[in-house]
């Protein structure tokens, strides 16, 4: 599904990722943990194709295809979805309008028929019920005035509607109350399938009680420093990241 080889990325002259390797097979869920500022969001942005990052070495292969130079919308159409750490407000644009536009853009790209208003409303009703999202939130402008938790839930709704093959969740659990966390985790688990993979970035092992990862990676100093199973998250929670500082020093 996703294969990252020796990835080097710089932002404004300073190197953030320094030879990162990561392979995620179809159907797998990988968790990425790591200290603040270690480059987790940078990695997710680079996979999604955001401007402003200089890739100075290595490559990213998604479903057998090199992503280098591909526009973000094309990556999205090919099935890459990023749940943002900080979802963005779009004033004046209703959430439904935005979602319908996104879905139909992707369908157009894939040569599929667009959903008409009726089909769309029907599909949305199902998804919002599943994720316990109010109609009101659909009518409001995208993320404008949403609480922190509502914004995160809105990201999961978008994921459910767009049905990606690779979903990257960047701290989707931060700011969620326990009930919301469960709903989000359920939403994610529902999407679990043999041909869908997920990259879950988190600071809390609590999330991994609900979303059981196949692998847990520690990103520090620009590289994956260690890879393990679910128990690695527990260990990190106890010991913190100090050992990786020593390793790098």
């Amino acid at each position, binding site marked *: 599904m996703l294969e990252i080889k020796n990835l080097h990325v710089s932002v404004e002259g300073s190197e953030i990722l320094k030879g990162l390797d990561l392979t995620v097979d179809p159907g797998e869920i990988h968790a990425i943990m790591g200290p603040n500022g270690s480059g987790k969001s940078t990695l997710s*942005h680079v996979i*999604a194709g955001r401007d402003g990052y200089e890739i100075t070495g290595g490559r990213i292969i998604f479903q057998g295809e090199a992503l280098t130079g591909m526009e973000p919308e094309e*990556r*999205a159409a090919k099935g890459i979805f990023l749940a943002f750490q900080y979802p963005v407000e779009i004033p004046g644009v209703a959430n439904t309008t*935005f979602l319908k536009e996104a*879905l139909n853009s992707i369908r157009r790209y894939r040569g599929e028929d667009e959903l008409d208003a009726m089909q769309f409303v029907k599909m949305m009703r199902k998804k919002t019920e599943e994720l316990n999202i109010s109609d009101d939130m659909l009518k409001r402008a995208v993320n404008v005035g949403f609480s922190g938790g509502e914004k995160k839930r809105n990201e999961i709704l978008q994921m459910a509607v767009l049905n990606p093959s690779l979903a990257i969740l960047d701290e989707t659990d931060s700011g969620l109350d326990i009930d919301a966390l469960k709903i989000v985790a359920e939403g994610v688990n529902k999407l679990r399938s043999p041909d869908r993979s997920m990259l879950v970035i988190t600071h809390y092992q609590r999330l991994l009680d609900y979303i059981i990862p196949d692998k847990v990676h520690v990103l520090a100093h620009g590289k994956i420093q260690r890879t393990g199973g679910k128990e690695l998250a527990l260990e990190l929670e106890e010991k913190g990241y100090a050992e990786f500082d020593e390793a790098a020093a």
Partner: protein
Amino acid sequence: MAATTETLAQVQEMADDKYKYGFVTDIDSENAPKGLSEDIVRFISAKKNEPEWLLEWRLKAYRHWLTMPEPNWAKVGFPAIDYQDSYYYSAPKAVGDGPQSLDEIDPELLATYEKLGIPLKEQEMLAGVAVDAVFDSVSVATTFKSKLEEVGVIFCPLTEALEKCPDLVKKYLGTVVPYTDNKHATLNSAVFTEGSFVYIPPGVRCPMELSTYFRINAKNTGQFERTLIIADKESYVSYLEGCTAPMRDENQLHAAVVELIALDDAEIKYSTVQNWYPGDENGKGGIYNFVTKRGACRGRNSKISWTQVETGSAITWKYPSCILQGDNSVGEFYSIAITNNRQQADTGTKMIHLGRNTSSKIISKGISAGHADQTYRGLVKMSPKADGARNFTQCDSLLIGDQCGAHTVPYIESKNKSAIVEHEATTSTISEDQLFYLRQRGIPVEAAVALVVNGFCREVLQQLPMEFAVEAQKLVGISLEGSVG
């Protein structure tokens, strides 16, 4: 507005034909000799079989015009206009004598309007919208006339109104925008060739949207239309004008005048979707849109509401205004102005509060992209008698790229202590974050820009009659093509 979604799909389809209205209709025209003189003024008046008083009025305007300097206070720049290098009258030959029945209209003309999305055959038209189609200097068709006549509404070309109801025309023409008003309006008073006339009798709610569609086709012609709308006591009308022109390398002058009059308890809603040819990316060609629009709320509790979507023209210079004379009268101005490439716009409004408890609201959304420059210029004036008057103004500018400009120039003159004037202004840009967010969801960059801009303009788009809101949203997307990426 839910229609945004459908719209964006259409914008995508239209991406390759940038200004799809840029075609020329190959039709025989009858032109007045080139240039401007008293003889030309007489020629136009004679062509229209006008009464003597109107010719006199035109001549007074012409003589006054000769003495007037060019207005130079607006923040726009262009070479001096050579008024002698233009035709002031151009009519497709077959309709030189005014509109006839649709069967007699040149099929080329019907085809032109169809191509513009304005079918004139009644059975094919937008239900509930009556259209007056003006082609260069003359009206070629007015639809649904008889249906309107049943309720006493008069909707016809101004020329025809001079025959049908000369007293009404004489009573109101030039009373809101006098012939001495400003250089462009004065020129219009001398040489105006067509326009629409609307009269809504007392107590009548006009049963359909009225609309005029202006089209400049001929080369080297100016278009000088004059619209006069009178809403008698307790009446209501919603009126929309649309405009397009072929792509030509030279600039063409459009100097229109619109006068609105609302009597006691009457309401006029006037919407404009202006999409004149804006010139090419380098600023070659395009329409000079120098327009004087003004409404008089003469009666108590009357209301005039202007909504404009200005996307076209090389230069736009217009300030639809309200004179709030009647006590409790209400003036509104909702505006979207989009300038891209080398377009320039200086637009805004004037709200002149004369009566007691008059109120006005100004919502202006300016979007500037490319190397374009635009200015919001507004005046709110509270006269000594305007006790309890209030105004609320909101001016928002959105910048796309770093080569464009947006300026806000609000003038406030308050001579009444009880009057309240509120002004808010913001300037923002489309952020990198917003674009990345939308693109990450699969929305291509141009559609993403259109979506953000439509969101920014939402408050104004919502004011448009349903039938035109979709069209306007499409235009917003199209006019910003090529502004990013």
